[in-house]
C-alpha cells in the first residue's frame, strides 16, 4: 500500500514522549500521543475486564445450586448490576475503539496522530472519572446499585442503593465515548495520507468510522435522559416516575434509543478487526470489500431503528411491535453479509492459522450463534416467551463476549508484537484459545435451554428442575477462568520475557506493518504516499516479513 520506507534505529514511542517529563507515570497520563493513550486505555480496560470476570465468576458460583450458596439475594443483585455496568460501560464500549482504534487508526490511514490529540487525552480522563464515580458507590452508605444495568424506573427510584452515582458514571463515560467518536470521524475525514481514498482504507477504519457516527449521534440520548432524571428529581416534574405522573415506559424508550445503538458501538469495531486478521492470514484481498464496508454503514444506520424490540411485552401497541420486529430482521442482513464475505475471503487464500486467526475462527462460530439466536428474539411469537429469560442472557453473551470479547483477544494477539515489540509463546496462546472456546460453549450454551424452559433472568434462586443446566454452566465458568488466566498470563509473560518482535511478523500489508515495532513517536518518518489497495499482498515482495 505504501511507498514509505521503514525507519531504522529510530526511538520508539516508549523512549520518546510528548510530555516535558520523559519518564514515569506523568509521561503517560498526560501524554497526547495516540499510542500511549491506547495503552492507557488497554491497562484500564483490562483491569475492569478482570473485575467484571471476577463478579461473573461469583455469580456463577452462587448459581451452582438452588438456594443461597455463598451470598444473599441482596448481594447477588448488586453483583449482576456491577457486572453489567462494568462490562458494558467500562470494558466493551471503550474496549476495541479506545484501545486498538486509538493505537491503529492514525497509523492505518498514514497520519501522525488523531485530529485532536488533547481531546483524546481528555476522553481517557473522562473515562477514569466515570470509573471513579462507578466505584465510589461501593464505599458510600447504601452501597452499589441493585437495579441491573438498565436502571428501570420506578425500581431505580425506590431502591435505597446509590443509583445516582452509577447513573452519573454512565453520563460521564458517555462523554468520553462521544469525544472518541468525534475524534475518529474528523481524523478519517481530514488526516488520510495522500492517495488514501475512502475505498483504499482498511476495513478496520470503515468500521471505526461507522462506530464514530453511532457514538456521536446516539450517546447524547443517555445524557438527555440523565438530565431529565435530574430535572424530575430536583423540580418534581413528572417525566418518568409514575408517582409524579410520569411514564416509566418513556424511560424504557429513552434508555433503549441509546442502548440499542450502543450494542453496535460494541460490535462494529470488532467486525473491522476481523476483516484485517482474515485478510492478513489468508494473504489475499477481502472478498467483496465494498459490501463489507457498506454493511458497516448499514448496521450503523438500521441500528437506530430497532430499539423497541427490547419492549415487546411492555404494552407496546401491536402495530409498533410488528414494525420493530420487521426492522430487527432487516438489521440481521448486513451482519450475515459480513460473515459470508469473511468465509469467502478464505477461498483460495494461502491460510496460515496462527493464534489471531484461531480467535477469529472461534468468533465466526460463536458470533453466528449469537446472531442466529437473535432471530429467535426478533420474532414476535417466540420473543414474548423468551423475553427476560436466560435465552436473552445467552444471546447477548454470545454476541458481546463471543463476538466483541473474542475479537478483543484476537486484536490483542494480532497487534501485540506491534504495540509492545515483543512476541508471545504461540503454543500456549493456541492452548488458551482452544480452552476458551470449549469453556465458552459450556458456560453459555446451557442458557438457551434454561431460557426456553422458562428460567427468568436476574434470579438469585431457581426451581430444582433448572439445577443440572446451571451446574454445567458453572463448570464452564471455572474452565473460562482457567482459559482466561492462560491467555492473559501468557501475554504478561511475553511483555517481560518475550523475544523481540520484527516489524512485520505476520506478513501484513496495511500501513502499521510498514513501520517499526513498536512505532516511533509520530509513526512515520515521512508521510507515506498510498498507491496500493489496502489488501494488495504483492507489496510483500521487497518487504521483510515473518517471525524468524
Amino acid at each position, binding site marked *: 500500500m505504501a511507498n514509505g520506507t521503514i525507519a531504522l534505529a529510530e526511538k520508539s514511542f516508549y523512549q520518546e514522549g510528548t510530555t516535558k517529563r520523559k519518564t514515569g507515570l506523568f509521561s503517560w497520563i498526560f501524554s497526547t500521543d495516540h499510542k500511549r493513550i491506547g495503552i492507557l486505555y488497554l491497562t484500564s480496560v483490562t483491569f475492569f475486564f478482570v473485575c467484571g470476570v471476577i463478579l461473573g465468576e461469583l455469580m456463577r458460583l452462587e448459581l451452582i445450586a438452588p438456594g443461597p450458596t455463598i451470598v444473599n*439475594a*441482596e448481594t447477588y*443483585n448488586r453483583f449482576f448490576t456491577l457486572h453489567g455496568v462494568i462490562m458494558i460501560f467500562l470494558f466493551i464500549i471503550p474496549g476495541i475503539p479506545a484501545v486498538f482504534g486509538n493505537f491503529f487508526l492514525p497509523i492505518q490511514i498514514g497520519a501522525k496522530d488523531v485530529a485532536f490529540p488533547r481531546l483524546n487525552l481528555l476522553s481517557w480522563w473522562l473515562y477514569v472519572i466515570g470509573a471513579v464515580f462507578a466505584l465510589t458507590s461501593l464505599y458510600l452508605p447504601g452501597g452499589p446499585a441493585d437495579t441491573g444495568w438498565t436502571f*428501570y424506573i*420506578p*425500581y431505580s427510584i425506590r*431502591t435505597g442503593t446509590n443509583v445516582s452515582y452509577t447513573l452519573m458514571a454512565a453520563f460521564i463515560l458517555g462523554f468520553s465515548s462521544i469525544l472518541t467518536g468525534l475524534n475518529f470521524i474528523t481524523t478519517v475525514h481530514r488526516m488520510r495520507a495522500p492517495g488514501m481514498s475512502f475505498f483504499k482504507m482498511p476495513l478496520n477504519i470503515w468500521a471505526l468510522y461507522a462506530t464514530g457516527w453511532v457514538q456521536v449521534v446516539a450517546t447524547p440520548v443517555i445524557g438527555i435522559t440523565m438530565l431529565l432524571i435530574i430535572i424530575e428529581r430536583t423540580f418534581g416534574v413528572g417525566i418518568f416516575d409514575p*408517582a409524579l405522573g410520569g411514564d*416509566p*415506559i418513556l424511560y424504557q424508550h429513552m434508555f433503549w434509543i441509546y442502548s440499542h445503538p450502543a450494542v453496535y458501538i460494541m460490535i462494529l469495531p470488532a467486525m473491522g478487526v476481523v476483516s484485517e486478521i482474515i485478510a492478513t492470514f*489468508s*494473504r*489475499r*484481498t477481502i*472478498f*467483496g470489500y465494498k459490501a463489507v464496508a457498506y454493511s458497516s454503514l448499514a448496521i450503523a444506520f438500521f441500528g437506530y431503528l430497532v430499539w423497541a424490540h427490547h419492549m415487546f*411485552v*411492555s*404494552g407496546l401497541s401491536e402495530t409498533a411491535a410488528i414494525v420493530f420486529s*420487521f426492522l430487527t*430482521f432487516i438489521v*440481521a*442482513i448486513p451482519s*450475515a*453479509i459480513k*460473515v*459470508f*464475505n469473511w*468465509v469467502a475471503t*478464505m*477461498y*483460495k*487464500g*494461502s*491460510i*496460515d*492459522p496462527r493464534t489471531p486467526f484461531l480467535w477469529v*475462527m472461534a468468533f465466526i*462460530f460463536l458470533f*453466528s450463534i449469537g446472531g*442466529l439466536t437473535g*432471530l*429467535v428474539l*426478533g*420474532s*414476535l*411469537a*417466540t*420473543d*414474548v*416467551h423468551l*423475553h*427476560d*429469560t436466560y435465552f436473552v442472557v445467552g444471546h447477548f453473551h454470545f454476541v458481546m463476549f463471543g463476538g466483541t470479547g473474542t475479537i478483543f483477544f484476537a486484536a490483542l494477539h494480532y497487534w501485540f508484537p506491534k504495540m509492545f515489540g515483543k512476541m508471545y509463546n504461540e503454543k500456549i496462546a493456541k492452548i488458551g484459545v482452544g480452552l476458551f472456546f470449549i469453556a465458552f460453549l459450556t458456560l453459555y450454551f446451557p442458557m438457551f435451554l434454561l431460557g*426456553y424452559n*422458562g428460567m*427468568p*433472568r436476574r*434470579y438469585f*434462586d431457581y426451581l430444582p428442575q433448572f439445577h443440572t443446566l446451571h451446574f454445567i454452566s458453572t463448570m464452564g465458568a471455572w474452565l473460562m477462568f482457567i482459559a482466561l488466566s492462560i491467555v492473559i498470563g501468557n501475554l504478561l509473560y511475553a511483555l517481560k520475557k518475550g523475544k523481540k518482535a520484527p516489524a512485520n511478523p505476520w506478513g501484513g500489508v496495511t500501513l502499521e506493518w510498514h513501520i517499526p515495532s513498536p512505532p516511533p513517536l509520530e509513526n512515520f518518518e515521512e508521510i507515506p504516499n498510498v498507491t496500493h489497495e489496502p489488501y494488495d499482498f504483492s507489496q510483500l515482495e521487497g518487504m521483510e516479513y515473518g517471525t524468524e
Partner: protein
Amino acid sequence: MLYNEVTSHANQVDNVMIYITVISVIFLLGITFTMLYFVFKYNRKKHKQASDIHGNALLEITWIVIPTILVLTMFYFGFMGYKGIKKIPDNAFKITGIAKMWQWNFEYPNGKKSDTLYVPSGKPVEIQLKSLDVNHSLYIPAYRVKQDVVMGKTNYIVINPEKTGSYDIACAEYCGLNHSMMYTKLVVMDSTDFNEWYASLDTQKETDTGEK
C-alpha cells in the same frame, strides 16, 4: 421442553422456534464446515500462492437475497404466532391481577380473592394487570406468554386454558430483593371444579387446594 400440548398457542410458538432453529442450524453448520474446509484445503503449507478474488456480483447478490427471504418468512411466522394474542374475546372471563413486591393477587368478578390463579378450562381469560409499586411481569412459561405489569398503567393478557393442571407463574421483570421468589401457580380446573371453588365463600384461605 417443546410441545407440552398445554395450549395450542404454546404449540404454535414451538413451531416458530423449530422453524427458525432448523434454518439457523443449517446456516451455522454450512458456515462452519465451509470455513474449516477452506482452512484445511488452502493451508499455506499446501497452497503457497493465494489468488486475489475481489468479489463475485452474482454470488453476493445470492447471499443477500436468500437470507433476506428466509428472515422475512421468520418474521411472518413470528407475526402470525403473535397476531391476535392481544385480542379480547367477547366471552372472556375477566380477572384482575395485582402485583406487588413480591407476590401476586388475583381478584375475581364476584369479589373472590386468591394468590393462586384459578381458571376454568376451555374458556378464554382476560387478566387486567396492575402494579402497586414497581414493574413486574406475569410470565407463564408453559403457555409461552408474558406481559409486563407496569406501575401507573393497566396492561392486560389473554390466556386460553385448555388442559387442566397446575403451571408455574413467574415474575420476569426484575423487581428487587425477592424477585426470584415471586412465583405462584396457574391452576386450570374443569368447569365443574372451578364453579365449585368459585362459589365457595372461604375466600382468603384458598391457596393450594386446586393442585391435584
